[in-house]
């Protein structure tokens, strides 16, 4: 008997099958994911999603007997009171009795329910989204280099010597050139010594001794000519510097927290930030988040304060932009970081601030940002009033000018929870048109 411990064998043998099954159900799954993002509570975006798939899409048909029609018989256990000849009313809806005739594999449900893993969920969620302006990112990233293995070379530093390759070449060369082998030479040495030691050598033996000595000398000479390891054998591991992809990003969340922003508007903004963060963390190894909130002056805060506490005061948007510029200059050198910014506001701004905003954006921020997204969050009550562009806020009108000139600037208006994902989708869609 054999006991084999298979617990350490690779898990997830069904992964391929699962993926294929998901692909089959992809359309349905996508709809479900899109729906879920609208309905979910804030903290849940990152958790598992239950998806219902209509059975017909993944049905495996077989030839089997229908559940009704024809004459049947059933043998059942547990008779209590019946005697031969009794009659029982059939349950309405037919079937009954036998039980197993219903369906071939016992799945009678109308839909097939299952749970997506986190990765599958996010994959589908971000399926058609693309990081904006990746090309530009690459240009900036080219500064960081990393050495990677790149085959073998004939020259190099001794520390990179590849022993296996070198010895293989050496062996091949020695065989090809018939370098005398050491056992062979040892044997010859022993024969010569034995013969030389013998005192009763005949003339014939003497002749043989001379012959052997000549052969010995020849082999020694040959072994000297054909080196054991020759410079032509040497092989070195080769390394090549390759540009290292820049794997970190920083995301700036800018939000107006002045009195005019209601809780529900902040909630909308938070959802947007949350999606952006999820999205970035899938694309980059490391994502830093910087929260800047502003009223008439801006301050960097932690997440809790950012979303929870309310402030009173006026609204000067340029203060937040200025703060962001300062932090970038201080902490996030452009050659190491990809910079993303998302601003949420209700659109109010101090009337004299427009020019300052525009100039900071144009000159300082947009040139080094990968992407700057502006979402204007509006109360549902206001939605009707502000839906048309003509009634847009002051900030919206100002930003509109920028959006027309810069491809990495995008702006959208959000009215309700259900809008968040579509808007996010639009902002980051693969074939995003310049706004």
């Amino acid at each position, binding site marked *: 008997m*054999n006991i084999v411990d298979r617990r350490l064998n690779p898990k997830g043998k069904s992964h391929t*099958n*699962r993926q294929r099954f998901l692909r089959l159900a992809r359309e349905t799954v996508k709809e479900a994911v899109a729906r879920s993002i609208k309905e979910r509570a804030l903290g849940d975006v990152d958790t598992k999603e239950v998806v219902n798939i209509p059975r017909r899409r993944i049905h495996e048909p077989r*030839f089997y007997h229908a559940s009704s029609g024809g004459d049947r018989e059933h*043998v059942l256990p*547990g008779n209590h009171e019946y005697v031969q*000849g009794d009659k029982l*009313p059939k349950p309405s809806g037919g079937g009954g009795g*036998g039980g197993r005739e219903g369906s071939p594999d016992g799945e009678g449900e109308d839909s097939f329910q299952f749970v997506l893993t986190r990765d599958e969920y996010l994959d589908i969620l971000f399926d058609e989204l693309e990081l904006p302006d990746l090309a530009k990112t690459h240009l900036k990233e080219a500064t960081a280099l990393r050495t990677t293995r790149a085959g073998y070379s004939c020259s190099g530093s001794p520390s990179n010597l590849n022993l296996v390759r070198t010895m293989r070449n050496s062996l091949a060369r020695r065989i090809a050139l018939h370098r005398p082998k050491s056992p062979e030479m040892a044997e010859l040495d022993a024969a010569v010594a034995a013969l030389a030691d013998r005192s009763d050598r005949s003339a014939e033996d003497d002749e043989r001794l001379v012959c052997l000595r000549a052969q010995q000398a020849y082999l020694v000479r040959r072994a000297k000519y054909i080196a054991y390891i020759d410079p032509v054998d040497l092989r070195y591991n080769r390394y090549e510097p390759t540009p290292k992809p820049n794997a970190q990003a920083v995301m700036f969340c800018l939000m107006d927290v002045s009195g005019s922003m209601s809780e529900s508007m902040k909630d909308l903004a938070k959802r947007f930030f949350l999606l952006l963060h999820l999205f970035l963390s899938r694309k980059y190894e490391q994502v830093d988040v910087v929260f800047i909130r502003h009223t008439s002056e801006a301050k960097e805060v932690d997440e809790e304060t950012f979303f929870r506490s309310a402030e009173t005061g006026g609204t000067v948007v340029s203060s937040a932009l200025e703060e962001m510029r300062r932090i970038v200059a201080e902490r996030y050198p452009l050659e190491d970081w990809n910079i993303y910014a998302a601003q949420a506001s209700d659109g109010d701004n101090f009337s004299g601030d427009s020019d300052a905003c525009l100039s900071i954006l144009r000159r300082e921020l947009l040139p080094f940002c990968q992407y700057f997204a502006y979402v204007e969050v509006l109360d549902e009550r206001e939605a009707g009033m502000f839906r048309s562009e003509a009634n847009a806020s002051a900030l919206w009108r100002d930003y509109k000018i920028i959006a027309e000139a810069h491809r990495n600037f995008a702006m959208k208006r959000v009215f309700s929870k259900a809008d968040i994902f579509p808007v996010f989708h639009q902002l980051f869609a693969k074939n995003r048109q310049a706004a």
Partner: protein
Amino acid sequence: MSAGRATSQRSANGLLYQSGEWNFDTLKRTFDAIEAIALGELGLDPYPNQIELISSEQMLDAYSSIGMPVFYNHWSFGKRFVRDEKLYRKGYTGLAYEIVINSNPCISYIMEENTMTMQALVMAHAAFGHNHFFKNNYLFREWTDAEGILDYLTFAKAYVARCEEQHGVAAVERILDAAHALMDQGVNRYSRRPRPSLADEEKRAEARRKHNRETYNDLWRTVPKKAKAPEEADAGQADVRIGLPEENLLYFIEKFSPRLQDWERELVRIVRQIAQYFYPQKQTKMMNEGCATYVHYRIMNRLYDLGKISEGAMLEFLASHSNVIFQPEFDDPRYSGINPYALGFAMMQDIERIVSDPTAEDRAALPEIAGTGNVMGVLKTAWANFRDDSFIAQYLSPHLMRKLRLFKLADHADSKEYLVDAIHDERGYDRVRRALQRQYDPGLRDPNLQVTGVDLKGNRRLVLTHSLNKSVPLSESDAKTVLAYVADLWGYEAQLHGIDADGTTRYRYEATPP
């Protein structure tokens, strides 16, 4: 049990293991004790055993590929995985304690989460009960190749993967989807006539020539012959040549489909081989489980009698054992058909009773085994030579029918009521037994479908005939979908005729390839 290796604690009370925790040492020790009973006392004849320890996650993986350790990729296995995983995570179903593979050596999977008592139960159940059945039952011996199955599955997996690489996943999936739909109709129910060897053919031809020579009479030449209509004779002959009617649809498609590429034919063949491999399991489910359950019950009790497992372990075993053989009554909401474990185990125990301590009734009903005294001999003969339906016909005793309170309902389509046709009494025993036998008869359980006609010279239309048994029709929507698959594999039009016993056509479906 070897005394030398025994720990002081064990030798004090003779137990194989002390707590629910298992380790490789207790596993090995317990296996040896079980083996001694199974081979020595019960006289079982299993394949060599291989026990594999896996985690619950791996058990789920194994589940989804019909319990086989190697299997080709297909989305339907993913679907099964997703479903089982959900049921398991939600706690609707536990995992099976074990999976056992009909191979040589016989591989049993046991889960690391099980307690030591469960591991002992599983080893007795799978590694000896099922294993003995696989090795000895005539269906498995005739139809499955325990030596080669794992190699074949490895080949199949590699072949399917290579086809996917060459022709694309979608093209492979198209064939597999269609072939899977026909799996139930892709088995040989009887062996084919053995192909005569060349020597036999020559001998026969020689005999025929000799006969002609010896009975030659020139007179026959002068007798006028009636000319046969040539095309009619031809058509009939063509059907015979390709072996119509043919009940193995996958075989027929593989051999004669005009459109399939070679690699597609091979895929159909792989599905057919696997269907054939599993066919005996479907026909012996009840017996196989009954055999394994009976064996583990005997072995565990014996271990307890020998003082090798504790009372606590025995209680744990009995709790789990009685869950396995629980049979709800027909009006219980939990009822979902007859539990094969329950019926199988009950029949094995009943045979034991009849052989060792029969009543007069048993002597009358089963004279050839009643009171012979050799329980294991009788059981082993039964396990070797029967399948579920014949086993019931042969061994279901009146005593057991009374005990299970079996009764038979007749369900006529045009009646508003069920009729209690027979119950467990003198007048009903035979009819209940026969009805239960029919319930397990694969020939009646699976629809009777055959390829009955194919117009190879004309429009190449393929005709399938479903011969209705007692007017029970096929499930219509599924039948149409599968027929579309048949048409796709065949490459030309396919028809399905439902013919009732009196020769009337009940339905006729048609499908053309996409």
